[in-house]
Every structure is written in C-alpha cells, then in structure tokens.
C-alpha cells in the first residue's frame, strides 16, 4: 500500500476561492483607505482647533494689555520715580500690571549736534 492510496485521491477545491479572496482583499483596502482618511482629517481638525484657540487667546491678551496701557496713560499722573526705580501705574484690569521704568541717564535728544556759523 502506497501513501497516495492510503491517504486517498487528490481533491479539487470548491470553485470561486480566488474570486472570494480578491473581493475580500479589495474590500479591506477600501476600508483601510477610509480609515486612513478619517485619521488624517481628525488630526488636521485637531491641529486647526488648537491653532485657533492659541491665536484667539493671544489676540485677547494683546487687547487687554493695550486697553490697560491706554487707561493708565490717560489717567492723571499720580506717581513719581527716582533714578532707575520702577513704579506701578494704576491698572484697571486686575490681570495686567503696568510698571513704569525710569532711566538713570537723562534722555538724549535725537538731534544734539549744534551747527556753528
């Protein structure tokens, strides 16, 4: 008795196996491509949202500082400083501190050279 006769004849698989595999692979590729697109879209949206938040926060902060500075400058002078010290100016915004810093040397005018005849 040979092995072939022991183990029986060679068989023919049911038809359509290759077609079934091709369809399954193509479906998976389509699904994978969709998943990839969704992931890319999600990441892009997250980055954009973060950028908008950061920029809007920055703009609001700039506006807050500008407003406080304008208020401080328009207020009547109540403070003085001595030789390089800084003093606090009154700020109407609790989130903004305004410090006025003086210089030790007197300011030099832009055009100091005198012309002699």
């Amino acid at each position, binding site marked *: *008795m040979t*092995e*072939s006769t*022991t*183990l*029986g*004849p*060679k*068989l*023919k*698989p*049911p038809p359509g*196996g*290759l077609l*079934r*595999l*091709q369809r*399954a*692979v193509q479906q*998976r590729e389509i699904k994978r491509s969709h998943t990839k697109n969704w992931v890319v879209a999600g990441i892009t949206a997250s980055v954009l949202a973060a950028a908008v938040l950061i920029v809007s926060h920055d703009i609001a902060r700039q506006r807050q500082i500008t407003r406080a500075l304008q208020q401080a400058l328009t207020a009547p002078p109540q403070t003085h400083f001595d030789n390089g010290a800084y003093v606090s100016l009154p700020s109407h915004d609790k989130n903004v501190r305004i410090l006025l810093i003086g210089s030790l040397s007197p300011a030099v005018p832009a055009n100091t050279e005198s012309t002699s005849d």
Partner: protein
Amino acid sequence: MTLGEGDLYASYQRLERPLFDALYRMLWNRQDCQDLIHDAFLRIWERHHRVDVDRLDALVWVTTLNLARNRLRWQRLWRTESFDADWPDSLPTPETLVDDLTQQRRLHKALRRLPAAMRDVVLLSEFSELSQAEIASVLGIPAGTVASRRHHAIDRLHALLTEDDND
C-alpha cells in the same frame, strides 16, 4: 521585497489545491477547508508590508496549519466534529461510493488517532510539494527529523488502518 496583491493571488492559485488536500484530511469538511485557506491568506495580507515574497509559500503553510490546529482543538472542545464525505471529483457508481465512503471513514478514524506531529509530517510530505528542508522549516523541526518522523508516521498509519480492518 514586500508582498503585492499579484503575489498573493499567484500563491493562492499555486497552493489552493495542495492546501485543500492536506486540510481535508484534518477537518473533513470542504467548506471549512476553503474558509480556512481564505482566512490564512487574508491574515497574511493584513501584514503584507512585513512579508517577504520569497518566504510566502512557507508562511502560508505555517498560517494554515496553525489555523487548522486551532479549529481541531475547538472542535474537540465543543465536540462539533464534521465529516461531509465529499470525496472524489468524478461521479461514483453506487458500489464505488460505498467503498470510498468506507475507506474515508477508516482513514478519518486513523488520522484522528495519529499524533498531531506525525499527521502534519505525513500530510505535508504527501500534498505540499515542499522539500524536506522546507517542511522542516514550516514545522519548526530539524530536517533529519522529517524523514524519520514520516517513516514512523506511515508505519503507524498502516497499523491503525489494519487494526481497524481487524475490528
């Protein structure tokens, strides 16, 4: 070189028949065999970026055999063994049908009693068209062991079939 769709389909065409022949002697159900071959190829495709084309056929055999072993364990656990007796390609006469069916049942019983390590060597040697070294690689055993295990397995199978004849 990574695996492309064309390589996968070419491998399917090349291996479908030998895989089916080997699996049928393990699962004894045509549809189960086809499903399992399909699943094995899909699993390989899932990680095709990491698959070397030169090792594809061996990988298909390893994956398919692992899936078949899992299926057999599951069948034994849940006692859902099948036997669809769908043997020859040509239409048999009533006499040959009875003979074939009897032969199938005897073989089914004998192969189920054969230790899994022996069964795998016999089926791969008979149907896979792989070399002895390749079979050793697929089964993860030394090349020299394949020949000796095959020899013992054939003897044991004949003994089991003869034993069944005498019952």
